[in-house]
């Protein structure tokens, strides 16, 4: 609608809301990566010898690997020796016993982010494990969870307090040298979350982790491990933000999920890392390996992601459907604006009989952004009666952006049914006009239509996240149609 173009321009320049820097002392190692640094990290965290060995092995493998180039991404060369691999808030040395002892500035940071860390401010039923740069700062609701037998703590604590569980499951879904970024993470990961739901337990509340990259020149390499024992159930939320910086920052996380017989894990992410400015300067490189293993019969893993941030996103939350009758789901909204790039999707590996998977992917691309869906549906020979349904839709806003779809389907079983559908189109002018004729301003109309486009995914998110996701979408795309 030509009359509106001028104000549209202003609206697009809406600044990143979470771009503030917290000014506290950090205990950061000099940039660079070698076996000494890895040993330092491991010693600093008082890890057992086997874990140091595991890290070093991953590191030696990583040295032999090359950056992947197959994604539809234009990535500037990353100097892995220029990154600092450890950064912890100073106050960690005498770890806070309660929230009162937590650096007030840190709490202030969380409040600015809108994370209700203090218990009285908590949204009912949400336990937060907040990871600030590399170290888990405080975990709330620990006691209530402990009553239910649920272990929810930082990865470092888990290594100390539950070494058997960690040793049993760490790397069992994403092997140390699975891919370039996973190997890097395995070598240098500093913290993350650990969660164990015992047999038959339905986790009494949503678990949540909030990640934030703060120090400059640091990479964030957190590692999350969630194990749902037989017939247990857990819903896990993850949110991410990072302050505005001119240089790119690396985030290479690994998430492993294990669902045993009859267990169910729901993992939701709202990713809003700093995307860089409107000229594509700065922003997070988000190279993440997420994989869930439906190890037991009748297990279920569901990934829901809303990706609005990061300069570059490279992630494929996947499900290995090993158990018979197991179910894998992937619901994704990926929004790219300005110079953002995303290559994201999923892998559904059907190994067991009667396994089912659903993939719903909504890509929105505006301005100069490039947005690719890449997915693999693999039906192995023994996966009798496997079913997959995939729907991938892309919405384009502006004639400089790109939307790409690369679905791989590999089927080796004659009783399998795989359906893939994809569409790509411009945001509907007829729809916009209809809304505007009913008195709705263009910007709101765009919001309304885009939210409608993403509805199938949003409805998979827990309520608080769904609201946040809708807002984020609005902020990310304001005025992107002109």
């Amino acid at each position: 609608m030509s009359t509106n173009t001028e104000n549209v321009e202003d609206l697009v320049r809406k600044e990143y809301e979470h771009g503030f820097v917290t000014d506290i002392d950090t205990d950061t190692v000099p940039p660079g990566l070698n076996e000494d640094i890895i040993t330092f990290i491991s010693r600093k965290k008082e890890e057992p010898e086997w874990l140091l060995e595991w890290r070093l092995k991953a590191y030696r493998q990583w040295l032999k690997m090359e950056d992947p180039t197959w994604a539809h991404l234009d990535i500037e060369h990353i100097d892995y020796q220029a990154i600092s691999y450890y950064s912890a808030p100073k106050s960690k040395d005498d770890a806070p016993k309660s929230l009162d002892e937590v650096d007030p500035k840190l709490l202030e940071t969380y409040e600015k982010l809108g994370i209700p860390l203090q218990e009285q401010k908590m949204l009912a039923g949400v336990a937060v494990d907040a990871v600030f740069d590399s170290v888990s700062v405080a975990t709330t609701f620990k006691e209530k969870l402990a009553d239910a037998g649920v272990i929810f703590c930082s990865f470092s604590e888990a290594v100390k307090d539950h070494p058997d569980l960690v040793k049993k499951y760490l790397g069992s879904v994403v092997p140390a040298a699975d891919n370039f970024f996973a190997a890097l993470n395995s070598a240098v990961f500093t913290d993350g979350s650990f969660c164990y739901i015992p047999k038959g337990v339905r986790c009494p509340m949503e678990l949540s982790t909030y990640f934030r990259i703060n120090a400059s020149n640091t990479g964030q390499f957190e590692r999350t491990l969630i194990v749902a024992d037989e017939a247990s159930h857990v819903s896990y939320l993850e949110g991410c933000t990072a302050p505005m910086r001119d240089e790119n920052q690396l985030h290479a996380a690994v998430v492993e999920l294990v669902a045993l017989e009859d267990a169910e894990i729901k993992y939701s992410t709202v990713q809003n890392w700093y995307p860089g400015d409107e000229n594509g300067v700065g922003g997070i490189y988000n190279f993440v390996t997420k994989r869930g293993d439906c190890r037991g019969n009748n297990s279920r893993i569901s990934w829901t992601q809303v990706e609005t941030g990061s300069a570059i996103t490279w992630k494929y939350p996947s499900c290995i459907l090993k158990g018979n009758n197991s179910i894998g789901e992937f619901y994704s909204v990926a929004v790219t604006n300005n110079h953002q790039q995303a290559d994201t999707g999923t892998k559904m590996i059907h190994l067991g009989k009667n396994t089912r998977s659903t993939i719903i992917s909504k890509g929105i691309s505006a301005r100069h952004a490039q947005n690719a869906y890449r997915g693999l549906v693999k039906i192995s020979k023994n996966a009798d009666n496997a079913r997959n349904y995939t729907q991938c839709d892309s919405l384009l806003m502006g004639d400089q952006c790109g939307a790409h779809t690369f679905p791989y389907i590999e089927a080796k079983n004659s009783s399998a049914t795989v359906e893939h559908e994809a569409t790509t189109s411009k945001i509907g002018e007829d729809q916009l006009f209809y809304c505007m004729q009913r008195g709705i301003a263009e910007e709101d109309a765009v919001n309304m239509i885009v939210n409608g486009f993403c509805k199938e995914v949003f409805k998979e998110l827990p309520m608080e996240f769904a609201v946040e996701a809708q807002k984020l979408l609005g902020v990310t795309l304001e005025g992107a149609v002109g």
Partner: protein
Amino acid sequence: MTTDIQNYLNDFDQLQTNDWFAKNRQSALNLFKETGFPNTRQENWKYTDVRPIARKSFSNINDQKTTVSPDNVNAIRFTDLDCIELVFINGIYSVEHSRINELPMNVVVENLADALATDNKLLEKHLSQYADNKISPFTALNTAFIQHGTYINVPDNVVIERPINLLFLSKENPSPFATHPRNLIIMGNHAQTTIIESYIGLDEANYFTNAVTEISLSENAILKHYKIQQESQRAYHIGNLNVMQNKDSKLESHSIALGGSLVRNDIHGQLADEGAEIIMNGLYMTNDKQHVDNHTRVDHLKPHTFSTENYRGVLNGNSRAVFNGKVVVHPQAQKIEAHQNNANLLLSDDAEIDTKPELEIYADDVKCSHGATVGQLDQDMLFYLRSRAIDEETARSLLTYAFADEVISKITLPEIKQRLEYLVVGQLPDAALIREFTNE
């Protein structure tokens, strides 16, 4: 890799002629020498391993005139179809069997080797312009060995009513041989014609066909192109079809793959001006240990261009099929429409399908869709037929036929349609019964 290509280098030295194209042959060979055969680490060849071809030492020199009796050829011809026909036996043009007659004024239809021997400016302008030697090593190899094949030039405003049938026959030879047929089709403004490429193995011959066809369509030209591939069960077939389409031109491509042990078909359409349209229909039916790979790519280079693709596969035995359909919408190519579909029927637990429909879109005002399915026969339909007293096996055959016929039924030339329907039914169990049902 060098050992794999040595026999090609040796044969090249023997065959290289001194015509105007010699330089191009040499540079294509050099390119092939550099790249060698493709491997499965390359995305374009991820699911197709060509080592069986690379390992074998084929002879590229087919000067010993293999003969085929007229009866043999007649058995293969579309006897009821009034057409212009060029026959090639083991890659060599056969004057004896070919029937080039009653051509409209100024239309050229001849053996490419003859055209190359003359000073032909038009040929120079078009030959090796649309098939990119850099994209496929097999195209480079074909270009290095360009000799026999077809050269067709349809001038402006000429409509050729009779279809042109290019019949490539292969027959057992003492030693395995490779042929590199090359076809060049130039269509002027508003020209219109139908071309059939048939690749047929006469016996269980062991050979490698490496065909390349280049097509240039000028403004408003319309070409219907059929490719019917019935190579022998031991044959390797690599085919590349490349088309450059001008304003308002239209290509309708039908590709039917039935034979061959290792088969790869590539179609590359370039919609280079507004109003250009490409329609691609395909059917592959595989059995035993066959491997059939179809790769298509359409480049929407200009606004208001259109592409539609519909490929279907029926897989049986230990066979494997690959489909990769790519649509690229280039920047500024607004108001385009691209629709693509690939459906597969897996009839056996040992068969495998790898399918990948791709969209790469750099413009915003587009309508694109693609879909891919892998599945079995519809249980409700099966039940319905059986409740109407049709035994299960027949019902299955009938429904399989119906699935494949979605593609065949789009063929407008009745003689070809009938022949293909006959061939498709022939691949199914209970063929005789199905014929009764479908011949009503």
